[in-house]
């Protein structure tokens, strides 16, 4: 087979764990290399994914049609009521707007859409060219807010102005404008916000139920099944529980600074991390030992039911090897543990947006010989999948065809999944999906098994 080399300029973003080997500090937090087919997206994408699940807000994309068209009903973020977030709105800028400016079009679009859909707030996403053509989005938003009486929030998400992480920050900044504007009356002292949980396939509902069983009030979920009114009173909670650390840590820090709300980082994937996320919240309220008791009760009940059902999968999957390439590094940690609990090892672990601490921890967690990558690309992913003889790839839609072409199983752990993978029930679903994909008899025909095609 042809040798595949790593692009120059990417050597510091790829690392293989070896004892006694050179201790390379993985380089991350950098922009993608020009010409490399990054699996990352852009600033706009970062903002869009974070705010997308806010179901009773109007999401208007200011720019040419593509950005809105490609994000129309794209995620599995479900809502218990309003579904305004599932529609796609764009100012659809044309050549003349680029020449003469798009402010008027933005203004009229907003006034008409707000009149028609009566949203609780509006988010206006700037795309690449908006900054260049000099539209004063802030001014238009202020004007429309005044005329309509709802918050109209600019999201500065010009695609090229940074990486996806900057987009997360721009989205959090917009959320910060809302937080603190609602009443905190009647909010329990034993209350939390769930941050960075997007209610994909109803996951936020699963998590919420666990906390509620512990006697904890969930003030708001940011942003899964999100509602503007709930966001407005988020500052009334006693603790912020942050999942998907990549997108929401900034918001948690801001809220800590402004409202004195402490935060903890959690993950809801896998038995170990799911349990820990309940215990860690309980620990925050030491004066109420009954909360910890209730948490233990929830975990024990759930695990009692879950554990035996996983054994079938574990038996089949023991010794199989997985490659993980997902958006956030925190998820990678959980997945490594979750995979180990069903007998699988991890031969490749990476993320689009991990930071230095994340990669240091990843290195610590991984087995000897595991390849660790930051901001990888299809060529690299394929190279390591083949070299390390992985049986499974965990990633998103963009990684799926790589796995299937190479004849290995795949588990979609991204925003488009339609089956909940969080919580205890999510661990079951995850194991089932991995099992169904890895153990399928169709791979007997894959050329990597030496079959002639």
């Amino acid at each position: 087979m042809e040798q595949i080399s790593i692009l120059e300029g990417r050597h510091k973003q790829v690392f293989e764990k070896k004892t006694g080997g050179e201790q390379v500090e993985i380089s991350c937090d950098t922009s993608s290399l020009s010409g490399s087919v990054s699996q990352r997206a852009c600033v706009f994408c970062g903002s869009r994914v974070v705010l997308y699940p806010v179901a009773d807000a109007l999401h208007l994309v200011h720019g040419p049609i593509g950005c809105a068209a490609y994000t129309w009903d794209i995620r599995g973020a479900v809502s218990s009521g309003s579904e305004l977030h599932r529609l796609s709105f764009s100012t659809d800028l044309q050549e003349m707007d680029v020449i003469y400016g798009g402010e008027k079009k933005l203004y009229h679009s907003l006034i008409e859409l707000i009149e028609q859909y009566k949203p609780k707030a509006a988010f206006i996403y700037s795309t690449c060219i908006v900054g260049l053509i000099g539209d004063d989005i802030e001014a238009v938003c202020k004007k429309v807010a005044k005329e309509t009486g709802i918050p109209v929030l600019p999201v500065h998400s010009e695609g090229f102005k940074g990486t996806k992480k900057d987009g997360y920050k721009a989205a959090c900044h917009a959320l910060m404008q809302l937080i603190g504007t609602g009443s905190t009356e009647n909010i329990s002292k034993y209350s939390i916000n769930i941050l960075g949980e997007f209610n994909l396939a109803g996951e936020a509902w699963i998590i919420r139920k666990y906390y509620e069983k512990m006697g904890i009030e969930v003030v708001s979920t940011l942003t899964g099944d999100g509602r503007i009114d709930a966001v407005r009173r988020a500052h009334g909670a006693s603790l912020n529980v942050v999942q998907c650390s990549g997108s929401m840590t900034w918001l948690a820090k801001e809220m800590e600074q402004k409202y004195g709300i402490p935060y903890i980082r959690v993950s809801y994937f896998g038995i170990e991390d799911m349990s820990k996320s309940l215990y860690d919240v309980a620990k925050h309220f030491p004066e109420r030992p009954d909360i910890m008791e209730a948490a233990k009760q929830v975990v024990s009940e759930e695990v009692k039911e879950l554990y035996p059902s996983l054994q079938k999968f574990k038996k089949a999957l023991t010794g199989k090897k997985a490659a993980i390439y997902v958006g956030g590094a925190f998820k990678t940690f959980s997945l490594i543990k979750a995979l180990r609990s069903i007998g699988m090892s991890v031969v490749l672990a990476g993320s689009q947006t991990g930071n230095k601490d994340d990669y240091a921890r990843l290195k610590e967690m991984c087995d000897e010989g595991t390849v660790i990558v930051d901001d990888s690309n299809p060529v690299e992913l394929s190279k390591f999948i083949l070299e390390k003889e992985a049986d499974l790839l965990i990633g998103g839609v963009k990684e799926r065809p790589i796995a299937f072409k190479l004849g290995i199983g795949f588990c979609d752990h991204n925003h488009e999944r339609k089956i909940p993978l969080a919580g205890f029930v999510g661990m079951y679903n995850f194991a089932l999906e991995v099992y169904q994909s890895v153990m399928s008899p169709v791979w007997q025909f894959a050329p990597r098994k030496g079959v002639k095609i």
Partner: protein
Amino acid sequence: MKHAKTATQNACKLCNPLGACLAFRGIENCVPFLHGSQGCATYIRRYLISHYKEPIDIASSNFHEETAVFGGSHNLKIGLKNVSKQYKPEVIGIATTCLSETIGDDVPMIIREYKAEFKNGSPMPIMIHASTPSYMGSHIDGFHAAVRATVKTLAEKGAQEKLINIFPNMVSPADIRYLKEILEDFKVPYMLLPDYSQTMDGGPWGEYHRIPPGGTPASAIAMAGSAIASIEFGSTLEASKSAAGYLEETFGVPRYHMALPIGIKESDKFFDLLETLTGQERPEKYDDERRRLIDAYADGHKYVFEQKVIIYGEEDLVVGMTAFLTEIGITPILCASGGKSGLLRKSIKELIPNMDELGIKVREGVDFVDIEDEAKLLKPDFLIGNSKGYTMSRKNNIPLIRLGFPIHDRFGGQRMHHLGYRGTQELFDRIVNTVIEQRQNASSIGYTYM
């Protein structure tokens, strides 16, 4: 309820660079390259993957803030260098985006500079540049711009060959395979562009392919200037924007321009043209296909007669489908497109002169909210178009027959035929079955023979 008209809601179109990327995937050993932000490439890859279910590598020059201020020249050059190194392509298909167009990057000049700077390095890939600003037109314009730019870059004048160029428009990989089969059966040398029949619908890989096998070779495209004729599908595709138009203008290769051959009449025109150009009769196999199709029309005619449908999608697909639907007695009460060539109505009128009597309404430049509003008034029996009509189909309880691009919520969109007798047969069967299924479901008896 007052309806917002200024904004586009649930767009019935995609952006210009998407079409260009797809077209570039139809060239052998070619990497599509978007000169713009990272997001454009990633979103387009994701969107195409959901339909074609193939890995699709699209490189990006990955603009940063400084790039936007000082111009994209530096990034583009580094990008080209990196892509050349990692993919070893024979061709790089560079399409611009709204960003690079707005800052006014002179891509042809940057390419010239790049070639001069790196002329002593490893073999220089052929570079094709298509201008595809997202604020103009839609994905179909990007598709044609890329095909035209490809021919413009590669085609040469040579001694006239018994060669036919065929530009099939944005059709499915299955359609492309069928067209190739037809031309091979006619035993005529041909140059079909773009040919993504294998790159977007190929087999499994024993090893990693940086660029999947398949596609029209650059050397074949070079011959396009010496062909005896170009056949170009797409009623609304003007010569000034098309590959065949360029070849006619520059090398005098006659352009035979026609609608997408869907339905018997339009397919006949295509086969007649092939007979004329090659001086051969169509192989018996196609007469058989045609006879079976006529037989099927007879068997199924009662189910479909005077059914009312709304058809939407790219304008040329809408024209082709309208021709087919009217010949089986279905009335497309609305022919809608997000595209805006200004030629949709005229093109339909050419094929169906009595369109107004039939009650065929045409609307260009619409989005799915507009189409839904029409659907509420017109009450069609079903909708025909891509997957993006599902939201309105579900909400209004109108069945949707999926075809074209994208098919994101069904399996096998890339293997669906639309063209010729074979494609028409498939479409006809599906339409009849949709009607039968509806009747069967609505029946209180539940007949088992329909």
